[in-house]
């Protein structure tokens, strides 16, 4: 056995502990408030306070991000369970705050947990397939000065586009949803879906090629313009 091997060096240990504990966070919510002068709570301050056990601070974060979390859950396929998924994600996020890297952004980090919870739902007994994207039932009011015929054409075009997306492989639907419907950057998409950073761009371009091909089929002509 290797009992006599040298122990890990002190600096390494200290660095590890720093990682485990996160950055130097003032020990109490009061200390944070003092150091920041109290004012309106930005994410970093709210996270630091929440880490120190301040539930008021965490409530601020939950309220701030509940809408994007809900939209992410619904569009990634949580359906009627979106509310449960979002609550569960916020509970898990609170528990995992210790591994949140302060130099990163809270929103994609949180949305990754929401996406994970949604995937877990897919794996559960009520297995769902696909992302179940649907068009809103109530059409938007026709913009002033626009003719109803033009609006009908656009509605039909959206319907075709969505039908084509729903035929794509699930990962294609996920990447399109993140980039265009949730308006995440490529880096954020990688974080949210837990994919390698480099894979989003290639998956996205392949998804767009497949989408174009599908759109071209029923129309019997080239790629329709915008």
């Amino acid at each position, binding site marked *: 056995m290797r009992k006599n091997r040298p122990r890990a060096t002190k600096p390494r240990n200290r660095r590890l502990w720093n990682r485990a504990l996160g950055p130097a966070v003032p*020990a109490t919510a009061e200390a944070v408030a003092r150091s920041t002068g109290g004012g309106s709570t930005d994410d970093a301050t709210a996270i630091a306070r929440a880490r120190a056990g301040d539930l008021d601070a965490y409530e601020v974060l939950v309220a701030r991000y509940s809408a994007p979390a809900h939209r992410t859950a619904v569009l990634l396929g949580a359906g009627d369970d979106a509310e449960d998924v979002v609550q569960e994600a916020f509970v898990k996020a609170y528990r995992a705050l*210790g591994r949140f890297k302060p130099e990163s952004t809270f929103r994609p980090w949180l949305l990754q947990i929401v996406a994970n919870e949604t995937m877990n739902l897919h794996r559960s007994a009520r297995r769902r397939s696909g992302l179940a994207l649907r068009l809103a039932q109530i059409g938007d009011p026709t913009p002033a000065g626009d003719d109803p015929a033009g609006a009908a054409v656009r509605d039909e075009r959206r319907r075709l586009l969505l039908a084509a997306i729903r035929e794509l492989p699930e990962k294609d639907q996920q990447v399109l949803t993140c980039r265009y419907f949730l308006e995440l950057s490529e880096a954020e998409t990688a974080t949210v879906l837990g994919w390698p950073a480099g894979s989003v761009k290639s998956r996205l371009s392949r998804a767009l090629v497949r989408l174009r091909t599908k759109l071209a089929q029923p129309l019997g002509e080239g790629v329709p313009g915008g």
Partner: protein
Amino acid sequence: MAERERNESTPLENDPLAAELHELGQHLEVTPAPAAGQVAAAVRARLESAGVPAGGRSARPWSQLVFRAAAVLAILFAGLLVVSPQVRAAVADLLRFAGIEIRQGQGPQVPPSGRYSPLPGERVTDLDTARELADFPILVPAALGPPDTVVVADGEPPRVVSLLYYPDAESPPSAPAGGEQPMIRIDEFHGSISPVFMKYVDQQAEPVAIGSYLAFWIDQPHPVLYVDRGGRVQEELARLSGRTLIVEIGDTTVRIEGDLDKERAIELARTLR
């Protein structure tokens, strides 16, 4: 990778189809979200009633951990005696919490192998790089010192980081895949989001306390399967694991496997830093 990430603005942004997709996003059905204040209040109520501590060791009161460990131990000991399906389900749920799902039963047939079994997308790196890459703290047993070989697996950030110790420290193999079986293999991963490993055991996993942390000792070789990011069980990667200690420390779940008895495994786990 970093280069590609920086290159965010692509010609795709000028693509009419991309513009159409953006526009389509405004017309998708999204069930109305509950009021933000309502979600915040519901989450707060759940956190308060469960006494969930915020992440990070400093925020975990010792008494809560002891209470939690005691509650889990009580249920598991009940499982040892009764072994009703309900109790077994409870046990599986609790262990799944730490990113490992333990099932009772034979599991798949696994050929006994003296070789090293790789995980998906595995590559050799060093400890500092693994620490930079991983999104969970990597713990090293001070009693063993730095590992001979460090392996990261399954994507970036890596989902699993393995520390390998070989009997002959002077000449660790540079490529573990297909090579010599390490004497001690320590797999670490973020344990609180989704299951990473699935194990089949005939007997119960034995709960043990390591300081204020809860751990489980599996005192027999057993099939272990890898569960990928999509939740799919990788049957083809099933292998026979040696006796194993599993401990959850903060966000990191640590699985210590090797030619160890229970006391030695616990002793190593106590020195995880």
